[in-house]
């Protein structure tokens, strides 16, 4: 039994066209339908106390999104999972929940994300060619892109935000980038921005087929951890 829970959910193809704020509302309404004993903020405009790990942009599918929810009374994590799934639309599934006692919430803990980006290029390339592009890309000291920040569009060096990158060929002009990127409140690098920078660098014209988030991580003592592992201090 627990009062604050951390849960993990996935988002499939059917619901990938929903923007982040719409996702929040989707959860709030599902929680209301489920009549879960969620805690509300005080004040004129009470909001459910729920925090999401990392925003999901339009088009993104994911196997592992995380959120923390505060309840007004104790609840069994497994019962939470079962109830939520009854009231969430097809395409979003909660697969696990644990008690959360750590001081930091999920939004403050997320530091990295693993992506699989599938894209089609305007011209076929051999797997050597794409490999050497990845090699050259990672060999650069600086990769400056224009990134939307709190202060508007700014040039940002994204090279330090790329922890690893590899590519393989799927079809004559369809490629997959496996990317491990800095994520979270500070220094978030979106997968679509990475792809854009990559293609720009090598004069490739690409069309996104899918962007899939495979995992989110928290870091403690220079170690990548599953967010469930850091739900207790």
């Amino acid at each position, binding site marked *: 039994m627990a009062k604050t829970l951390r849960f993990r959910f996935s988002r499939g193809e*059917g*619901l990938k*066209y*929903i*923007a982040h704020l*719409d996702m929040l*509302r*989707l959860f*709030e*309404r*599902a*929680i*209301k*339908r489920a*009549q879960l004993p969620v805690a*509300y903020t005080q004040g*004129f*405009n*009470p909001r459910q106390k729920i925090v999401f790990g990392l925003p999901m942009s*339009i*088009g993104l599918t994911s196997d592992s999104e995380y959120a923390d929810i505060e309840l007004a009374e104790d609840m069994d994590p497994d019962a939470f999972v079962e109830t939520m799934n009854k*009231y969430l*639309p*097809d*395409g979003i599934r909660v697969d696990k929940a644990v008690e959360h006692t750590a001081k930091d919430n999920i939004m403050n803990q997320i530091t990295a994300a693993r992506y699989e980006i599938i894209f089609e290029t305007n011209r076929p390339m051999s797997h050597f060619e794409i490999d050497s592009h990845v090699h050259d890309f990672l060999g650069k000291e600086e990769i400056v892109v224009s990134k939307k920040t709190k202060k508007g569009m700014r040039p940002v060096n994204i090279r330090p935000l790329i922890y690893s990158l590899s590519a393989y060929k799927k079809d004559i002009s369809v490629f997959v980038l496996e990317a491990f990127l800095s994520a979270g409140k500070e220094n978030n690098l979106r997968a679509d921005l990475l792809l854009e920078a990559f293609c720009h660098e090598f004069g490739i014209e690409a*069309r*996104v*087929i*899918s962007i899939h988030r495979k995992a989110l991580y928290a870091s403690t003592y220079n170690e990548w951890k599953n967010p469930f592992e850091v739900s207790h201090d």
Partner: protein
Amino acid sequence: MIAMRLKIDESILLNVEKPAKYTGNEWNMVKKDPDDVKVRFAFCFPDDYEIGMSHLGMKILYHIMNKREDTYCERAFAPWTDMEEKLRERNIPLYTLETYTPLSEFDFVGFTLQYEMSYTNILNMLDLGGIPIFANDRKKGMPFVIAGGPCAVNPEPLADFIDLFVIGEGEEVINEIIDEYIAWKDAGEERDGFLKRASRIEGVYVPSLYNVYYYEDGTIMDILPVSPDVPDTVRRRIVKNLDSVDFPDDIIVPYIGTVHDRIMLEVFRGCIRGCRFCQAGFIYRPVRERSHEKLSELAKSSVEKTGYEEISLVSLSTSDYSALPELCDNLIEFTEAEKVSLSLPSLRVDNFSLGLMEKVSKVRKSGLTFAPEAGTQRLRDVINKGITTEDLIASVKLAVAGGWTQVKLYFMIGLPTETIEDVEGIANLGITLIESCRELPGEYNKSLNITLSTSCFVPKPFTPFQWEPMDDIESLMNKQYHLKDRIKKRTRKIKYNYHDARLSFLEAVLARGDRKIGKVIYTAWQKGCKFDGWDEFFSFEKWMEAFSECGLDPKFYANRRRDYTEVLPWDHIDMGISKEFLKKESEKAYEGDLTKNCAVGCSLCGAQGYKTGICIKSKRG
């Protein structure tokens, strides 16, 4: 027939704004196997998803049709221009959100006519859906195009495009139409056979079964049915007892924000007031209420089934609901416990309503809205708007003393008998309100900010002003500038907004148009007109070209005074309101004579013939 599901992939959806408008699968979307039903109905809203999904009528009919096991009602909306471009580029027909089925594969394709400026979108949606635009080009096996809603009271401008119209409320008649369709299909008759059968259902108008004859001057001589078994007039359908028809509590919850993204509880239909300019005040008579017990139940079950965080009470004038205190007590208790917010639009401002708003207003006190509609008492009497300047001053003072410091006032310019004094009266009224709030004590006396908004009066069918000429565009614009100037010179505490007079002019043509206007709509659409209600798309020039190419003068429809004896294009539609009554109201308007509201006494408008609602409650005389 095996149902085909279109595939709309990411190469389209990742390249349009708000792709979730085109993917469906929302919570409470009805899922059925199309092969299991006899009738497939595509309910089309001729505007953007965000507008259409806010429309209560669609939710009601979606729910009612889908309760039938033999019918599957699905939804389609006008795709935004970015999506339309993609669909046309790849030859993908417009499809329904439930099963991604092209519109052309349905038994019925239904449009709701909420405003005249959506007519070109109907043509565009038919075209995108692979359906011939003209009704007489539709062949065996093609859908029947059906339309209803407030603009169907004058169906003539759309007569060329629509196979059948529903006049009045759809909850009951839609079931009769579907039953008749199944019987027709089972009988294996020709396409015409169904239209003939449908024309005998009360409230159904089949335009192809009527001929219109004109005089040389363009006015109508007669509108006659093509054969004796077709009724001469089509009488509006109403639901006698609102508690007896289903009202949806399992409404679809969109993923993206819509204009009215909340539970809407329809408290009653109709309006007792009878303001002479207001079409809604006549075409929904008589007032029929839902019981407050039923409404409270609906509120609870709706929140349970949708998870919505807001409920709004919907009607033309919520303050006139006879059980408002009981309903509000119940709802306030429930919504507070459930952390649901309650909004109460269209309330008259008085002590009761302010107290109520104080109780329900969880958010900061923002604005209050008043609709005096005209700037002087004389003109307010002409339009039968029974409020006085004193009432308004009292209400605004109450509001300001209660902490509402933003006040919006709605007016119309171009009303019948209007003079320049009436126009200036709008500015004067604003100034009077600001000055009278100076008498209030302390912190509130200087805090009032006013927004004055003027729309252009558009004469509508089935109102006492249906014979009136609309004011010219130039005159309306001069009045707008004059008013703007006047306000600017007097005070900075008043903001002034006004509508595009050219858009209202066109609305006036379409509202009172005859069958000949169909050609103009078609021509305008061919020139690229669509989303005409949206400033960024409206092209007055293209519409004017369309009129001139069709050899029609829009002023004939908008700016001409009709004789009481002229046959009006909608004369074969019987709204249950007598022409004699409308004529009498029009004469009283010129005298500045007020007509009492239905709660005070009956004026024998004709709606008493429906023998229900307020008509069987109120006294005659």
